[in-house]
Structures are given as structure tokens and as C-alpha cells.
């Protein structure tokens, strides 16, 4: 019986191309990863922590940052969270926080009005600074 090679070879070539494209894309995104779970971090969702030793850790959510800090108890020089409205980084101690009832994900806001609007819309609740007060956080070297 005749064996047809053309279609399988074309399929293999397509799959090899897909793999090389995917490998290139993955390698290109290997820049910023969450220090806790390794997920890629969108610039507008990045939480940046600088320890007193000068080490920088990036996280993709407040939950990840909290868990990472619970495990390591680092001395913190600076900690920024993204404003849920603009995506701009703000100092974690200056932000106000709220969480929606569905996901339970804590969001940071630069302005009280934005938080109130979010709480009205989501029927969520305001929460205290999840990283604690600045005086509790900062540890001298």
C-alpha cells in the first residue's frame, strides 16, 4: 500500500514552527517573574519589594507577597503596590485596600474615592494594610 509522506511532514514542520515560536516567546518573557509562584508579572500588576540588603523581589499579587514575606520575614527598605485604577506604583503604606466578595483578592488604591467606588460596585469591604503598619515592617539592618 502506498504511504503518503507529504501531509505528516507538513504537520511536523508546522508543529516545529509552533514550538520555536513558543520557545522564543517564553524566553523573551523570562524577565520578570513572581518571586513566590514564578508566574509572569504584568508591569501594571507588579508589587516590588526592596529588602534592606538591596535585593529586589517582584510579585504578581498581594497574596503572593504576603506569603513570601511570611516565609522569610525580610527587612524591608521599600514596598510598592500597583494602584488598581491606574496601574501606577504607590507606596504600600500610603495606599488604601479593599477586597471584593467573589474573589477575595485584595486590591490597592491610591485614592479613598476610588476605593469607595470599588466597594459600592463590588459590594466588598475595606481592609487594613495587609503588610502591616510601616513601623512594623521596616527592620533595621
Amino acid at each position, binding site marked *: *500500500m502506498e*504511504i503518503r509522506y507529504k501531509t*505528516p511532514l507538513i*504537520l*511536523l514542520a508546522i*508543529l*516545529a514552527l*509552533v*514550538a*520555536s515560536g*513558543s*520557545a*522564543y*516567546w*517564553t*524566553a523573551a518573557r*523570562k524577565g520578570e*517573574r513572581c518571586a*513566590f*509562584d*514564578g*508566574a*509572569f508579572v504584568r508591569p501594571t500588576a507588579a508589587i516590588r519589594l526592596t529588602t534592606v540588603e538591596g535585593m529586589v523581589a517582584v510579585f504578581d499579587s498581594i*497574596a*503572593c507577597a504576603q*506569603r513570601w514575606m511570611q516565609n522569610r520575614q525580610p527587612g524591608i527598605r521599600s514596598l510598592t503596590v500597583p494602584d488598581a485604577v491606574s496601574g501606577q506604583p504607590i507606596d504600600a503604606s500610603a495606599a488604601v485596600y479593599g477586597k471584593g466578595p*467573589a*474573589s*477575595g*483578592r485584595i486590591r490597592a488604591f491610591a485614592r479613598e474615592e476610588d476605593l469607595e467606588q470599588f466597594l459600592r460596585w463590588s459590594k466588598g469591604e475595606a481592609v487594613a494594610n495587609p503588610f502591616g503598619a510601616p513601623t512594623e515592617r521596616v527592620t533595621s539592618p
Partner: protein
Amino acid sequence: MILNPLSVAILLIGLLTLLLAALQTGFALKLHASLGPSPTPDLRTAVEEQTHLMLTLAVVLLTMRMLAWPLFYATLQSFVPDIPGAMCIYGVTQALPTLSGALQVLKPIGFFLSGLWLLLYALNRAAKTAPLFRRNLALLAGVSAFLAADALGDLFYFLTLTPRQEVTCCTLITDLPTRASAVVPRTLLGAEFDHPLLSLYFAAQTLLAGGIGLALFRHAETSPARRAGEGALALGGAAALGIAAIAFIEIIAPRLMGLPFHHDLYCFIQYVPDGSLMLVLPLLGLFALLWAASLERLGRHEETASHLKRYTRRLWGLALLAFVASPLMVAVHFLVDRWLGGT
């Protein structure tokens, strides 16, 4: 319940499957019983006329159900931001672990059974007098009952899954040094098993592909020899799949994700765009080998002999393609990573 377009789609498909599959099971069983072991030609023609619409519907339903497998994982992925503590599909599955585990086992079995029935149906239609009609009905009743149970599981799972429960992250479970996927190669290949396991993975896939290629070129004419060959290939396929699974968890996924200490395949399909393809291809290859072996047993009849040979060869061709494509994709990833100066 978590509502989004994907969960609505899977619920609709589940509801539709449950209703149609339950009806189909009853109808197929009734017709199978009415035919009896040796039906008269008139009775068979009458029954065949009654089943035309049902069989067409079954083709649509089973094809739809096969597509529900990737949809299931896409829906779980879409729930990640909604479940507290979940960072990948693993976390979502921990919200209702027993049910999600059962559904993850049922889905590939349903995919295999649906594919087998569709192949038997096509084989029966290709023959002149539809000699496999009764067998087809019996298999349809069994497959439909299975799919109805799977759809019921889907409905129950997606209706009861709520975002209230805090779940554990995959890193706490899959990266333990005592995980089974690390203990087995460590026992067999020693503490430094990375290179030997990777070599074993490529060797197993190449050997199996060679075996399938040989079977394609030297197709045995006698039935017992053919069946023995198909059995051996199916066993080889299962072994190659097992080795591939361990190699993916231990070496390939961590390297391609760029997370050398993380061994979770759910994260792998999330971070590497073609990760799911690389994982599914060997499974599809094994299914193709099992479909060929099952068809040889279920579809044997003097009228179907030539068609059966053609079907077997096509399924082997599919298996060969699948078992070659997956390691090829892995090799391409490694090469591109090396070229770009990565791991």
C-alpha cells in the same frame, strides 16, 4: 457557582449531553434487544431506518463531548483569579479535590470511548451490508451511559464550585522532595537522574516511533500476527507515555518554564503556550494505538477486512506522527533556549 463565558458553555454542553446521552442509552439498548442475536433482514432494515437520526445525533454528540475535554481545562484555568490561594489549575482543582480528580480521569476515558465508537461507526458505514450494526448499538449504549455520567459530574462540579474556600498552592505539594515522580527515577537511575532520564525519554519515543514505522511498512497479513503486533505497540505506547510523563514533570517542564525547582504540569501549560500540545500528543498517540487494537477486535468481519487494514494503518500513522512530534517540539524548545542563552 462561578459564572463566566466558559463555565456557561461547559454547563450548557453538560446539560445537553446529559439529556441526549440518557435518551440515547435507552433507545440504543431497546433497539439492541429488539434485534436479537440473529435478526431477519426485514427486521434489521426496519431498525436501521429508525436509527438514522439517532446515529447522526450520536456523531454530533460524541464529537462535541470530545471537545469538552480541552474546554474543561480552559474553564478551570479561567477560575484561577476567582479562587483564593489558587495560582494555576492545580489550585482550582483543590477546591473540590475528589470530584475534580474523578472528572480528570473520566474525561480522557470518555474521549477514547467516543473516538472508538466514531471509528466503529465509520467502519460499519464503509461496509456494504452494515455487518457491525448490532455491535455498534451495544457500544453506543455503553458510551452514552458513560458520557451521561461524565456530564452529570461536570454539572455537579461547576454548579457547586464556589470561590469561598481557600486552597493550597501547587508549590507546596508538587515540589516536595518525596514526590513519586522523583522517587521512581532516583531509585532506578540514581540521585543524578536528569541526564539519564532525558536520554531515556528520547530513546523510548524514538524506539516506539521506529516500531510503529516498521509495522506500517511490514503490515502482517495474518490476523493473529497483526493482533500480536498491535498489542505489543499498545504496550510500548503505554510505557513510552509513562516515561514521558515522568520526564516532563521532573526535567522538561521545569526547564522550559525557566523554574528549575517547580514540577507542576498545570503551571507548565499555563506558562509555555504549546505545553498542552506537547503533553497531549503522546496521549493521542497511545489512544491511536489502542483504537487500532480495539478496532481489530470489535470490527472484524469479512466485509470490513480491507477497510479495517486501511483504518489500522491510518491510526498507526497518527500514532507515529504524535510520538515523533512531541519530542521534536521538546528538542526545538531546548535548541531555541540554548540559542538565546537560556537554560
